[in-house]
């Protein structure tokens, strides 16, 4: 994945066809973040917080549903992806809002996988990888990081 062109309104990336396929498969895992595990406060336990937590949990579900529709449209209906003549490469055109959505989706999957691993310190992988499932989770996290890196780089980070 690389940035081909950037204007004040549009970002144009080039992806290998394998990268596009990988992105599509990764997005098939969305959403991964468990809404019920998200806490609004560590110390406040009153009724107001409980009510707010319920409302925010519902809002979070709507947000994730909206992102699922966005993914579906991006890959199936939109003109954002355009293949090269030999179908070896694709250009992906995104505006700023779409980049934000992709970052949120990729990070949801990345953090969700980390939660699934039991929220370990990621310094030494040997300490927490115990099964093939764990290897898969780490692999997915790395792929999400790969795409996040290029999106953030395009934004100037």
């Amino acid at each position: 994945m690389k940035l081909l062109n950037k204007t004040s309104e549009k970002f144009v990336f080039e992806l290998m066809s394998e990268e596009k396929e990988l992105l599509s498969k990764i997005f098939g895992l969305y959403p991964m973040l468990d809404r019920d595990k998200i806490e609004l406060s560590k110390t406040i336990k009153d009724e107001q917080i409980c009510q707010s937590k319920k409302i925010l949990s519902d809002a979070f579900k709507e947000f994730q549903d909206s992102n699922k529709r966005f993914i579906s449209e991006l890959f199936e209906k939109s003109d954002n992806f355009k293949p090269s003549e030999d179908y070896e490469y694709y250009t992906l055109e995104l505006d700023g809002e779409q980049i934000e959505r992709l970052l949120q989706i990729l990070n949801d999957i990345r953090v969700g996988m980390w939660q699934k691993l039991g929220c370990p310190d990621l310094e030494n992988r040997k300490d927490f990888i115990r099964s093939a499932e764990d290897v898969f989770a780490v692999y997915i996290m790395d792929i999400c990081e790969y795409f996040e890196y290029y999106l953030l780089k395009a934004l100037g980070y």
Partner: protein
Amino acid sequence: MTQAGKTGVLTEKDVSEKSKAELEPGYLVICWNDPVNLMSYVTHVFQVVFGWNKQKAEYHMLQVHNTGKSVLTRETFERAEHYVHQLQKYGLQATMEREE
């Protein structure tokens, strides 16, 4: 800061709203450290959610990274709730806590 009318004179409504905001208990929006979110990503999210410049966003990102947490802002209940929700939509570990 309460905005005065064109004349620069505070109306009764302005004073009343200002007093209400001052009397309301403060809520701190806190971002907690985790080993999963990229530093550049956290900086970006702070810039988007709070409209901060890169320098301020990086300062708070480094505070989270080095000390385990950063108090990002002090707000009313509703505003703090809003910011926590925005940060959590990006996958950051954020909560609101009552100011001591």
